[in-house]
């Protein structure tokens, strides 16, 4: 009893450093960028954005190059090939999100400094830290994918979350932003605590923090009459804690307020990065209890099932009532989490692949849409009302087209990328026999069509109200560029869905082999 288990943690971590080159690159880049942001030289400060984007892209490439599913498998990563799909994917989309942030800077101050009318104030020209935080967050997501134990998972999740709290708070230190930050932070802390309690219970039930050992313990328990109540409780609390990250019911309540309060580019980040983290976390944790073999404890499946239905439905129904575009996107993001939860509830490898692909499709669509929306702004805030989009087709036809494409893809109109996401989730759920979930999914797609139609119709059809103050143009070209690139990808990538599907499938193939 007094004998302690050998501490394998440190040694195994050392083995894994080889897997972490992309994250290391990102962390270094984050520091560099933070420092660059402090420079008084405007060109150096101006290079912060491009450098960040390049760093993210480079980390993606690095992930592709270093790869090493074998090394990961040897290190005990539950889904050794997951990183090979997720890291480049996250890097690609994160690059887009960073580009959407391109315009996010205290423009007035920058201009004033340029004219020598104001002294440089590193506390107000926040670009450097801001990008650094984003890079930290991205690094966190990447770290997650190679997590082997709960500690790593916890740390990586915190690395994802904490920078986003800051980004919301300092993004535009106005009252909505601060309100969003306070809600996000406190509720997030509570959810983290719940998750931690779940971890503790898992530990209690299995006696280990390492995923492979937990899996073995659960496997043994399942073989001898079912996973212990303590373990089920741990899984459940963990899942509920992670629901916060993916904005799933009932942990979604913060999302509308936070998304609305945060500046538009941050909203874009929020609707993607923490979501990926949450889903990866869920996959890893639930993977220990037989997610892909359909052996999840029944209560967990029921939880996922219920959460999926409620998340889809509440998200879409809520979105119908909104006037703020960001708030609508928040509800939309909730609904999409619901769709992905369907895949999780279906609980097959195929469904998992569908989820991973859906994350990608969702990310690409998010960049295209938010990039398009980011081309207009208002003094002291975002141009956030639907009416602000009126007449956009004249001022910015490209952005208009991309918003339309994004909305179509979100709705799931073929042959755009979003359609294939839904397609795969539906087929896998059907195959898993989850007909009820499929019906909810398609009905919810229908409901969602209504508010996406507003995104499509308003910029194309509506004429601006002559009494309203006109919106301003975002001086940065980066958002529209990102939007166009990702929007065209929505059209072009479907031609290559075959290859992408194959790639995604490899991401989850490995554990089957390992087992």
């Amino acid at each position, binding site marked *: 009893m007094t004998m302690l288990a050998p501490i394998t943690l440190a040694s195994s971590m050392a083995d894994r450093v080889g897997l972490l080159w992309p994250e290391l690159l990102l962390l270094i880049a984050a520091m560099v960028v933070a420092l660059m942001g402090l420079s008084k030289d405007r060109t150096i400060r101006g290079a912060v954005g491009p450098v960040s984007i390049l760093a993210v892209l480079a980390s993606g490439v690095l992930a592709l190059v270093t790869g090493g599913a074998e090394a990961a498998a040897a290190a005990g990563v539950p889904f050794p090939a997951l990183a090979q799909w997720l890291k480049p994917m996250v890097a690609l989309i994160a690059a887009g999100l960073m580009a959407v942030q391109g315009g996010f800077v205290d423009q007035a101050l920058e201009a004033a400094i340029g004219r020598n009318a104001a002294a440089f104030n590193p506390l107000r020209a926040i670009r450097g830290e801001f990008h650094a935080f984003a890079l930290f967050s991205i690094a966190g997501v990447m770290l997650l994918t190679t997590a082997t134990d709960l500690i790593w998972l916890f740390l990586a999740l915190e690395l994802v979350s904490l920078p986003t709290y800051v980004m919301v708070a300092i993004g535009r230190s106005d009252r909505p932003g601060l309100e969003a930050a306070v809600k996000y932070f406190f509720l997030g802390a509570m959810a983290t605590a719940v998750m931690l309690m779940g971890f503790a219970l898992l530990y209690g039930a299995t006696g280990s923090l390492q995923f492979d050992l937990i899996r073995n313990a659960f496997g043994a328990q399942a073989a001898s009459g079912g996973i212990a109540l303590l373990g089920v409780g741990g899984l459940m609390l963990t899942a509920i804690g992670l629901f916060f990250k993916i904005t799933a019911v009932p942990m979604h*309540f913060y999302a509308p307020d936070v998304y609305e309060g945060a500046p538009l580019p941050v909203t874009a980040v929020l609707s993607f990065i923490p979501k990926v983290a949450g889903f990866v976390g869920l996959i890893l944790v639930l993977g220990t209890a037989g997610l892909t073999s359909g052996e999840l404890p029944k209560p967990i499946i029921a*939880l996922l099932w219920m959460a999926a239905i409620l998340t889809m439905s509440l998200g879409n129904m809520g979105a119908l009532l909104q006037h703020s575009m960001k708030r609508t996107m928040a509800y939309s993001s909730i609904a999409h989490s619901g769709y992905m939860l369907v895949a999780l509830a279906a609980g097959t490898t195929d469904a998992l692949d569908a989820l991973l692909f859906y994350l990608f499709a969702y990310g690409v669509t998010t960049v295209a849409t938010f990039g398009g929306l980011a081309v207009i702004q208002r003094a002291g805030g975002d141009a956030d009302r639907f009416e602000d989009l009126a007449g956009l087709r004249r001022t910015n036809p490209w952005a208009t087209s991309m918003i339309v494409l994004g909305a179509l893809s979100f709705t799931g109109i073929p042959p755009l990328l979003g359609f294939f996401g839904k397609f795969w989730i539906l087929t896998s759920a059907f195959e898993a026999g989850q007909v009820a979930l499929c019906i909810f999914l398609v009905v919810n797609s229908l409901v969602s069509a209504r508010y996406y139609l507003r995104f499509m119709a308003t910029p194309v059809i509506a004429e601006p109200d002559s009494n309203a103050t006109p919106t301003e143009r975002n001086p940065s070209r980066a958002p529209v560029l990102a939007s166009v690139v990702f929007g065209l990808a929505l059209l072009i990538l479907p031609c290559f869905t075959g290859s992408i599907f194959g790639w995604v499938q490899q991401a989850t193939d490995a554990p089957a082999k390992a087992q």
Partner: protein
Amino acid sequence: MTLSPITSMLPGTMLASSDVPAATIAPEFAWLGWALALPAISALACTLMALCKVKGKLPGWLTVASLGTCFVLILKAYQSMPEGPIVVPLAEWMSFSWGPSDFHSLQAALELYIDRLTIFWMLFVSGLGTLIALYATEYMEHDVKAGYARFFAGVSIFLFAMTALVMGGNLLLLYLGWEGVGLASYMLIGYFFTRPSAVAAAKKAFIVNRIGDLGLALGIFLTWRCYGTIEYSELFQIAGNPPRDGPWEEALIPYLLMLGAFGKSAQGPLYVWLPDAMEGPTPVSALIHAATMVTAGVFLIARCYPLFLLQPDALTVVAWIGGLTAFWAATIGMAQYDMKRVWAYSTISQLGYMFLGLGLGTTFGACFHTFTHAFFKACLFLTAGAVMHGFAGQLDIRKLSGLSKIPGFRMVSWFALLGALWLAAFPFSAAFFSKDEILSAGVGSDRADFQFLGWLGLFTAGLTAYYTFRVWFRAFAGPVHFEPGEEVHAHGEFHPHSPRWAMKLSIAIIGIGAVLAGYPAYEAMFLHKENWVQWMMAGSTAVGGAGVVEQAADHAAEASSGHQVLGMSAHAATSVAGSIFGIGGILIALYLHLIRRSAADSLRRAIQATPLIGWIPGAAENKWYVDEIYNAVFCVPLWVTGHVLHFIDKHILDAGVVDGIGSSPSLVGRVFRPLYGGVLQSYAVTMAGGVGLILAWLAYTWLRGGF
């Protein structure tokens, strides 16, 4: 083929073999296809000319030429025609085949079925068509700049469709013609399309006809169901075989076909369109709505007589409808003031006789009457047209008098008299014989109901004579007096302008034709030869009836002891009674409308003053309010239903149900709104509560024993 029922209904006659001879395929007669093609070409050409706004009489002459050629072709066919029926395949139209046997194909080729009935019908259709087109070249000349080409396009379409109807080799081709003549009728009734009444009349004609067409179409379906074919050549060969379908289906066929016939020939409840159809130009009334198109119903029944013979009850219905329509229309005709309307009602009435004849089994009588009627009614209409043409559209017999004394209208008047005499079935006129054939079959029948119909027909003949001569005595005899109609163009004093050569020639030829139409009867009577019309019927599909009549005629000729009516043979009795009724009617008309015209008015006043029957004159003038009743019973309820349904569709189904369902998600979403109250703790509480609820649900489900 079992025909026992029909023998029981006809006086002691045994049927000759009524099997329709088998048709031979005769591709060498393909030139007859031109009879179909020429009017079609003319129709296309006239349409193009109408579209290109060709001014001049070219369309008229083109039509006359093509119709004339058509007539010549028919004459040639008449001469070279073999004994039995022939089938002339021309082209494919609709054909299906999905198996080897009968009932595995639906063949409806563009083919002609030529027997004597066809030729007989085509002779007077194309002949009269040519003459009336000739008449119209002059009659329509004031429209040369407006609708002249359109008019002749209509006439050509009509002739094309009528040819398809009569000569077509299957029921579907007949249907094509059937609807085609409906289209022509629509176009021509609505010729003066700026007149709302004309437009309404055209619409009415087409729609009422469509009701009949519906029956015809369903009859065609049912025929195919029962017999597996709709081609005459096959159909009539197997018509007697036990049908594929149940008795109910087979029994229904003639009733459905009958409905089509009633629609086209303005019988029974579907007669209402024909009087209104007089809104069309008079040549149209003469050609389509008197002489030819309206006889299509007679043709249909004659053509499909083998199918009718299988259902004697259906023939009884035809007889009743025909007899009653004859009487009904005559009562209305007595009270009309518009010359063309009187002739229209007389047309309905005379068509009723034809149907009576068909129902009584004397297809010969019916066809003979059709033949004679075509001529004398065309003659009457053309003379009416001449009056209308001359008096700027005036046709009211209260405003015209003594036309026979106006120079230029003398010939018209005398031909009108000829037509009137014929219509009144004046003894030894052609119509006298043809009507006699029909009525004697009724009067001489064993069956009481047929006898009643026969006597009713005789009485109606009296009414016919009265109203016919009411018109003639009013308008053409008596002191000269006239008021011009509404179409006065020239200023200053009105001078009636008399018809010129084309109109006169047409009237003359048709008038002479009307006289000659009686020739077959004279021939039979005096030379004891076979009646030509009867000969034409022989060997055709109408032969069953012809056979019956042949026997009946033999019986009559032998003056056999049986079936005496009033101590005479049925024929003789009908002739005498018919003469008495006819001459009586004329004499009453002579007294009331020529000798003492005031007596007519005082009689009318006297009737109106009498209780119980005082409403009759007004009601008769208003056509017994049939249109109003139809309107109230059918149109208004449907129209109201339409509005109700539209309301339901728009406000309940669309705005209510559909939009309601559409907005339900946001309504449900509204329920959850209070949860997003904006306070940090309340979110925490809601989250915790949500987690608690989910956990409770899980626990509950788990405790209940599973998921």
